[in-house]
């Protein structure tokens, strides 16, 4: 099975406090730790496990600049055979639909049975997989947390409310967006990344992909983020202060009063 996994380089929110820059038009990016989007990492692991079972190969693709290459190499170190970097000045400022159009060009250049994305990334939009499927006229399932290969079809589970799971049979080729927890992504060490350091990663721009440059980028975007801000949220929590003994003393009083201690 030929599997394409779409990945994104994002600031790691578990490692960083996200702050807004002084101009208010972006987050403060100088000291951020970047990594692969957590959902995408599960998607790559899932693709590798499928190929280990049924054969084939995994290709990882991203839309970005030279810095995004490190994310491709990290995922290749996990076991993805090929990487593709989609990069062009014309891609700058694309909205979700723009990114999906660029990825659509890459899908059409290859021959894939299965395309995976993470269920969402740093902007929480959860949109690119569904858009890509619609552009390709492929069936789609989002929030997938199990995949079982059955000949030319897949049996997939979608995570729905209350920990329940909706099971579907889906024809290939198809697009699936992958939820965290579907597997346990393998650890990637420095040595693994070194091993793939010299593997060539092809770069494609708009013309290579057959993407009309005027259909992507900031000018084509119908959805535009104007700025970032931190909303006024009213009073919020009463922050307990003082020495740790004082804080614990106050907290215990609260817990007693509210029925939190038995």
């Amino acid at each position, binding site marked *: 099975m030929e599997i394409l996994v779409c990945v994104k380089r994002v600031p790691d929110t578990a490692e960083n406090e996200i702050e807004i820059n002084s101009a208010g038009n972006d987050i403060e990016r100088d000291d951020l730790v970047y990594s692969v989007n957590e959902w995408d990492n599960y998607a790559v692991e899932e693709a590798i496990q499928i190929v280990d079972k049924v054969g084939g190969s995994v290709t990882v693709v991203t839309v970005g600049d030279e810095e995004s290459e490190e994310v491709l190499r990290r995922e290749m170190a996990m076991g993805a055979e090929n990487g593709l970097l989609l990069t062009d000045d014309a891609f700058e400022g694309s909205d979700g639909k723009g990114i999906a159009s660029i990825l659509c060009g890459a899908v059409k250049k290859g021959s894939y049975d299965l395309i995976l994305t993470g*269920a969402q990334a740093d902007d929480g939009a959860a949109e690119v997989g*569904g858009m890509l499927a619609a552009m390709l006229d492929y069936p789609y399932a989002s929030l997938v947390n199990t995949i079982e290969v059955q000949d030319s079809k897949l049996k997939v589970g979608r995570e729905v409310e209350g920990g329940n799971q909706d099971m579907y049979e889906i024809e290939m080729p198809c697009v699936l967006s992958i939820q965290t927890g579907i597997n346990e992504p393998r650890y990637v060490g420095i040595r693994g990344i070194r091993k793939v350091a010299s593997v060539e990663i092809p770069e494609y721009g708009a013309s290579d992909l057959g993407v009309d440059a005027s259909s992507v980028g900031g000018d084509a975007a119908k*959805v535009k983020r104007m700025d970032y801000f931190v909303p006024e949220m009213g009073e*919020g929590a009463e922050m307990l202060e003082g020495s740790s003994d004082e804080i614990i003393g106050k907290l*215990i009083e*609260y817990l007693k009063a509210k029925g939190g201690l038995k």
Partner: protein
Amino acid sequence: MADIFAYIEHNQGVVDDSALELLAVAKKIFPDAAVTAIIMGSGGDLDKVCNDMAASYNAVWKVDNAAFSFPDAEAARKALVNILPGDSVLLLPHAHFGMDLSPGLSVKLDSAYAPDIVDIEGLEGNTLKVIRQEFAGQVSAHVHVDISSGAVINVRPGVFAADESKAGGGEVADKTGDIGDVAVKRKYLETVQAEAGEVDITKSEVLVSVGRGIEEEDNVEIVFDLAEAMGADVSCSRPIVDAKWLEKSRQVGTSGQTVKPKVYMALGISGSFQHMGGLKGNPFIVAVNKNPKAPIFQVADVGVEADILEFVPELTEKIQELG
């Protein structure tokens, strides 16, 4: 002005809470518009749902087809493309069904897609000004949506007050004949119910809940020690289940359990909306987190800025001394 529609989720005759929230959002976007509810299903309680919604909405479009005996986003997308007028604005709840349906629908309609909207600032010409959150709720963003060729807008459930005015009085129109071919390449098989765990946290009065701040599996023990000292049960946020450190039945959130304790201790939990969506009944919330900007502090009653790995054992010891 574009026509505006709301997609109504319903299950066994019961309309989802989002139905009247979407009505409020529609009136915020177009204050004078007639708002149409779209209700898909297959026989059974469908007419009851349509009649219920006609009291609130100015019009109801019913689609009654066996393809919708279970809400299938792939089939719904095909039907909606055929029945919606060009340039329509369609509102849906940003939950698992809307996340499955909407991105692709916006492509098929060639309209803008605005996911997970938490507020509407207003409309200027064809520019709809909305607010979203990014980076797991740590920052908000002003977003401009060009609705000149229509829009699909997924609204975060539970943030807009429902429109309970029942000022609709609409007629139910049957649109079943207009949906066209809804055959799809994805087939619903069954729903697998969540497995019951060793503890039923939905019945717990006091929950000590642990999140990513616990850092390592071996550290989870300190949370059980605190819970034991307090006479509480242990619950957790999603990353702890993803890491397989605790069973799924202990997860609080929209994709886990809905709990209603009297007291909720959130330890090293940032407080994403998916997590908070599982917390009902207005409990007293204590948040302990080393990140002072964690969204949990905006909803908690009492907060402590501290590393839970240091704070929790100290707290446990002090509570044990009370014993």
